[in-house]
């Protein structure tokens, strides 16, 4: 479970990226965060695994106070939280399998990592993760030889290899075309359902959000402006979030048709 309590983040330079945010995400929920560019979506997601520290307020993740964690405690927390990135963040020069094995690092002794000698059990877990996103045949391909959609599936597999209870995805489909975006979103949804993984996804397009989310959280200027099921996300809500009415730019399909 994730619980923000009056959480605020001010970046060095004075930008208030989150203001007194209080939300609770239950185990197994599939939540999509929407908002304008600069609304604080990435900040919210990165706060969950401590990549961005809170300036004030409280944040509890899986029973831990994130603001009070030691270095080792933070690594422990991060090992339970898988992360998926807009730019995939794969190591291009190495194999898909090596990239996915990164998800096992918290369970693998350092000397084994340094020598590149991963235990069989961890390789099996990585292979299973690759199987879950149906890309196991590419295990020994270099990441640089994959398409964008394939890369993001490897990104998902890396997160899955952590055997996480939470998955965070920061605009996971922003670099992909519409059909590929749907493929990736379906994998995320299916994994969340099958494995009961709490999933938080940042999305740019509202139609994509309503299509996949159990629950949508709208941010504007670092403040919560909407929190409810996708079905409740009407034109009025949209105006609250985006400060204007819906245009073709805001939905993937209308934009793709242009």
């Amino acid at each position, binding site marked *: 479970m994730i619980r923000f309590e009056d959480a605020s983040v001010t970046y060095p330079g004075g930008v208030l990226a989150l203001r007194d945010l209080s939300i609770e995400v239950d185990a197994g929920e599939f939540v999509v965060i929407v908002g304008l560019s600069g609304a604080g979506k990435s900040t919210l997601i990165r706060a969950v*695994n401590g990549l961005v520290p809170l300036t004030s307020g409280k944040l509890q993740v899986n029973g831990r106070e994130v603001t009070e964690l030691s270095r080792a405690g933070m690594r422990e927390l991060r090992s339970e939280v898988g992360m998926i990135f807009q730019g995939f*963040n794969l190591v291009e020069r190495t194999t898909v399998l090596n990239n996915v094995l990164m998800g096992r*690092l918290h369970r693998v002794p*350092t000397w084994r990592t340094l020598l590149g000698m991963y235990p069989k059990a961890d390789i099996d877990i990585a292979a299973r993760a690759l199987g879950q996103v149906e890309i196991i045949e590419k295990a020994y391909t270099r990441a640089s030889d994959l398409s964008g959609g394939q890369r993001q599936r490897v990104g998902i597999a890396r997160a899955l290899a952590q055997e996480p209870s939470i998955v965070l995805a920061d605009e996971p489909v922003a670099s992909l075309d519409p059909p590929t975006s749907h493929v990736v979103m379906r994998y995320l949804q299916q994994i969340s359902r099958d494995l009961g993984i709490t999933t938080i996804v940042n999305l740019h397009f509202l139609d994509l959000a309503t299509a996949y989310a159990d629950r949508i959280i709208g941010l504007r200027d670092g403040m919560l402006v909407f929190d409810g099921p996708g079905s409740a996300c009407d034109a009025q809500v949209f105006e609250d979030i985006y400060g204007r009415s819906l245009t073709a730019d805001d939905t993937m399909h209308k934009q793709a048709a242009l």
Partner: protein
Amino acid sequence: MTVPTVGIQAPNLPPKPRPSLFAIGGTLAAIAMTIVTARSVGFSFGGIVTNLGRKNSVIEGLLSPDWGQIWSRRSRAPFIETFQLAVLGTATGSLLSLPLALWSTRFGNPNPFTRGILRGFNNVIRSIPDLLWALLFVSAVGIGALPGLLALFFFSLAVTTKLTSDTLDGIDMGPIEAANATGANLSQMLRTAVVPQILPAYSSFVLYNFEINLRASAVLGLVGAGGIGNRIEFFRGRGEWEELWGLVFMFFLVVFVVERISVTLRRRLI
């Protein structure tokens, strides 16, 4: 008057920027410095011509080198020593340079204090030339192969750390973020997210470093730090120029072959 060009008139270029004062001043300073230094070392073209015309046993030796040196048993040992020095110096120095370069980066070493110390150390060893290292260690541990090895170790450390550090400046930070987000520790992050990115370039630097070391090890012997340079110095002292040139040609051949191999290998790495 002018040849008519086809089509429309070329657009006017914006006014040409004037050469900067800095460039003019720099050029003038360079010329002035060359003249001043040439005069102070007593350089004159006349001198070169007169000296070349004179009977000169060094040049004569060059014209009839003693090819027997290539097979000579007594030259083989220092040769092998040169090779050993170059290999060992490269292996030890460049092996240590990898962690040193990694720990000198912001992402590889979050502690600004130790990072500053390491960077300072890198800058100091980089500013000491190979021959000075050799002199330093010859006076510290006496003549022989050991000071040569120590000199090449520090020299390699300096060269490969510098080149590797420059490569580290340009790597993709995405994988680092990804590794940190999985809960990896620092060493694990460096090994899985950073090392694969720089490994080809680093291997190429190690090979390049070996080339330089092979050449450098010839000079090291001149100050008593072992290897082929000792033998060259020996012939020089006795005025045996034919033998000296035979040895130098052989060394040149070896360096040439090693360099060709290294260049080919390095091209395949990057």
